[in-house]
C-alpha cells in the first residue's frame, strides 16, 4: 500500500512544479508596485498621467499610497520589509537619502538621462516635477502699491499686514531673507544663517507659517495673510477659482520634488521602468498641464498647450535663482536645528 502512495505524491509534486514554473512569469509580471506621494490633487494627477498609462503599456499595476513619511520610510528600510517601490520626496531629502543609505541608485540605463533637466537629477533621485517659490499678494489689499520684490516683502510700513512663509526647515525662506537683505544671487551659498535670521527677526511678529499647500491657499484666500512666499502652482489654482491674487516672479526660486526608490524595494526593476515612464516627455507635459507645476523633461515644453506654457516657471528665467539642493542636503541637520531653535524663541 505504501508504494502507490509515494508514487502518487511524486507525480503530484512534479505536476505542480511544472504548472508553477510555467505560470510563474505571468504571476511575476502581474505583481503591483506601490507609489507613495503626498496625496491630494497632485497625487491624483500623478496617478492619472503617469501610473495609468504605465499600467496600460506594461501590464504592471500601480497602487497609490501615502502620505509620504520619512519616518515610515526609514522604518521600512531598517526592517528589510519595504512596502513602497517609488516615493515622491522633497528635493533636499532626496539628495541626502542616497548618502544615508535609504534609497537605491537610479538605474540610468532604464531612465533616459539625456532628456532630463540637469538641475533635477542625481545618482539617487530623479525629478518628479519642479516649481518656483514666488511672491504672492492680495490685489484688493494692495490696490495702489503692489509689492514687487522681496525687499518689499520685508517692508511692513509700505505693505502692512501678516506675511506667510513655509513653516518647515527647507530651501526657500532663508534665501528670501538673504536676498531681501541685499545679498547677490550668486553669493547666496554658503548660507549666512545669522544674517538670514536677523533679517527675519525684523518681521517675525508679523509672520504666519503655512505648513501645507492647502493652508497657504486658505491664508491668502481668506485675507488672513495678504502677502507671502508661495508655491507658484498654488497661487495659479487660486487665480483659477477667481481669487484676485497678484504674483511677482522677480527672483523666483526653483525647487523640485524628486522620485526615489527605497533601498531594498521589492520590485526594483519595475520601479525603474515606472520612473522612466513618469519622466518621459508626454507624461511630464500632461502632468504640467493638469497641475500648473513644471516638467523636468526638457522636451515637454514643446508639448505644452500655449495657455499652460505661459504660467510655467521657465517663462520667468530672467531673474530666476535655483535653490542649491546639494548644499541643503549636506547641511540639512544643522540648518534644521538652528531653524527650529529660532522659530521657537
Amino acid at each position, binding site marked *: 500500500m505504501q508504494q502507490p502512495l509515494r508514487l502518487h505524491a511524486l507525480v503530484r509534486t512534479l505536476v505542480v512544479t511544472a504548472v508553477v514554473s510555467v505560470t510563474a512569469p505571468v504571476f511575476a509580471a502581474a505583481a503591483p508596485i506601490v507609489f507613495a506621494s503626498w496625496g491630494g490633487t497632485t497625487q491624483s494627477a500623478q496617478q492619472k498621467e503617469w501610473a495609468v498609462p504605465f499600467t496600460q503599456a506594461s501590464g504592471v499595476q500601480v497602487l497609490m499610497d501615502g502620505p509620504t513619511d520619512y519616518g515610515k520610510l526609514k522604518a521600512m528600510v531598517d526592517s528589510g520589509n519595504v512596502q513602497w517601490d517609488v516615493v515622491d520626496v522633497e528635493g533636499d531629502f532626496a539628495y541626502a537619502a542616497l548618502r544615508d543609505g535609504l534609497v537605491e541608485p537610479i538605474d540610468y540605463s532604464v531612465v533616459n538621462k539625456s532628456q532630463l533637466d540637469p538641475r533635477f537629477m542625481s545618482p539617487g533621485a530623479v525629478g518628479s516635477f519642479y516649481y518656483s517659490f514666488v511672491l504672492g499678494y492680495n490685489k484688493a489689499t494692495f490696490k495702489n502699491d503692489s509689492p514687487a520684490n522681496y525687499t518689499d516683502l520685508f517692508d511692513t510700513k509700505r505693505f502692512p499686514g501678516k506675511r506667510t512663509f513655509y513653516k518647515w526647515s527647507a530651501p526657500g525662506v532663508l534665501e528670501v531673507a538673504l536676498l531681501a537683505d541685499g545679498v547677490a544671487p550668486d553669493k547666496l551659498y554658503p548660507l549666512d544663517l545669522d544674517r538670514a535670521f536677523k533679517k527675519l527677526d525684523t518681521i517675525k511678529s508679523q509672520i504666519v507659517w503655512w505648513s501645507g499647500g492647502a493652508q497657504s491657499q486658505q491664508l491668502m484666500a481668506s485675507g*488672513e495673510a495678504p502677502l507671502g512666499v508661495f508655491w507658484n502652482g498654488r497661487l495659479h489654482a487660486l487665480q483659477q477659482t477667481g481669487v484676485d491674487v497678484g504674483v511677482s516672479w522677480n527672483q523666483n526660486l526653483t525647487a523640485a520634488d524628486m522620485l526615489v526608490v527605497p533601498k531594498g524595494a521589492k520590485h526594483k526593476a519595475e520601479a525603474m521602468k515606472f520612473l522612466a515612464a513618469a519622466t518621459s516627455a508626454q507624461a511630464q507635459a500632461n502632468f504640467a498641464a493638469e497641475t500648473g507645476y513644471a516638467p523636468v523633461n526638457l522636451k515637454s515644453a514643446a508639448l505644452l498647450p500655449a495657455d499652460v506654457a505661459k504660467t510655467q516657471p521657465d517663462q520667468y528665467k530672467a531673474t530666476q535663482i535655483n535653490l542649491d539642493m546639494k548644499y541643503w542636503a549636506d547641511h540639512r541637520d544643522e540648518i*534644521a536645528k538652528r531653524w527650529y531653535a529660532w522659530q521657537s524663541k
Partner: protein
Amino acid sequence: MPNAMSTVAEPPVSLPKVSAGLRAARLVLPALLLLIVFFLLPVLSLLLRSVLDPAPGVQNYAQLFGSTTYLRVFGNTFFVASVVTAVTLAIGFPTAWLLAIAPRWVSKLVFAILLLSMWTNLLARTFAWMVLLQQTGPINRLLMWLGVIHEPLILVNNLTGVTIGMTYIMLPFLVMPLHATLRAIDPTTLRAAAICGASRWQAFWRVLVPLAMPGIASGALMVFVMALGYFVTPALLGGPEYMMLAELIAQLVQQLLNWGLAGAAAFVLLLVTLSLYAVQLRFSGRAPGASGAH
C-alpha cells in the same frame, strides 16, 4: 454609597476574600500581555536607541539638557498642559455639576450636545476652530461689529488657539467621569452639612469637593497627561513659539530622522510624568481610580 459611609462588618470567613483577591489579580493578565508584547517591547527597543544611536553613550541626553531649545520645549509643554487642565477644570466642574443635579431634560440635552461634539471627527473640529479663530473669521468679525474690539484679535497660531482647541477636545473627558462621581454622592450628606450649620461656601469646599475628589483628580490627571503628549491640535492651532514636545518628537522622528534624540526626549517625558503621578499618589494617599481602601 461612598466607602466612608459604610459600616458593614467583615464577612465571617476571611479565606474566600484572600483567594478572591488573587483571582481578581489574574484578570489583569490579558491586558498586561497585550501591553507587554505590543507596547513595552517595541517602545523599549526604540527608547534603547537613545543610548545606542548614533553611538553608544549618553550624548543624546547631553544634547537634550544642554540645549535651551529643548529645555524650553519641555517647559512649554508642561506650562500649556497646566493651563489647559486649569481652564478645563474651571468650566468642566460647573458643567458636570449641572449634569449631575439638573432636571432630567436639561441634563439630557447638555449630555446629548456633549456627545454630539465628541462624535464630530477630531480633525474636522480642530479645522473648524482654525477657520473660526482667524483674524477675518466670524468670531473676530462679530466682536468688531459689536464694537467690543477695533483690531482683530490674534486667536490662532498661538497659545490662545491651542488652549481653546485643546480645552474643547478635553472637556468631555473631564465632564463625563466627574458627573458620574458627583451623581454618586448622596445629597443627604450636604443636607446634613447645612443642618449642622455650614454655610454654602463651607459645604462646598469642605464636603462636596473632598467627596468629588476622586472624579476631579482622575479627570484632571487624564486631561493633563493627554495634553502633555497631544499632537494634532497643537500642530494645527499652535504657533512655533510654544512648540510642544509631541510636535518636536514628531519632527525628530519623521523629518530629521534622529531617532536617538527622539527616544531620549520621549524617555525624559515618561520619567517626569510618572514621577508626577507618584508624587500625586503620595499626597492623596491613594491613586485616583485605583485600589479602594478596604
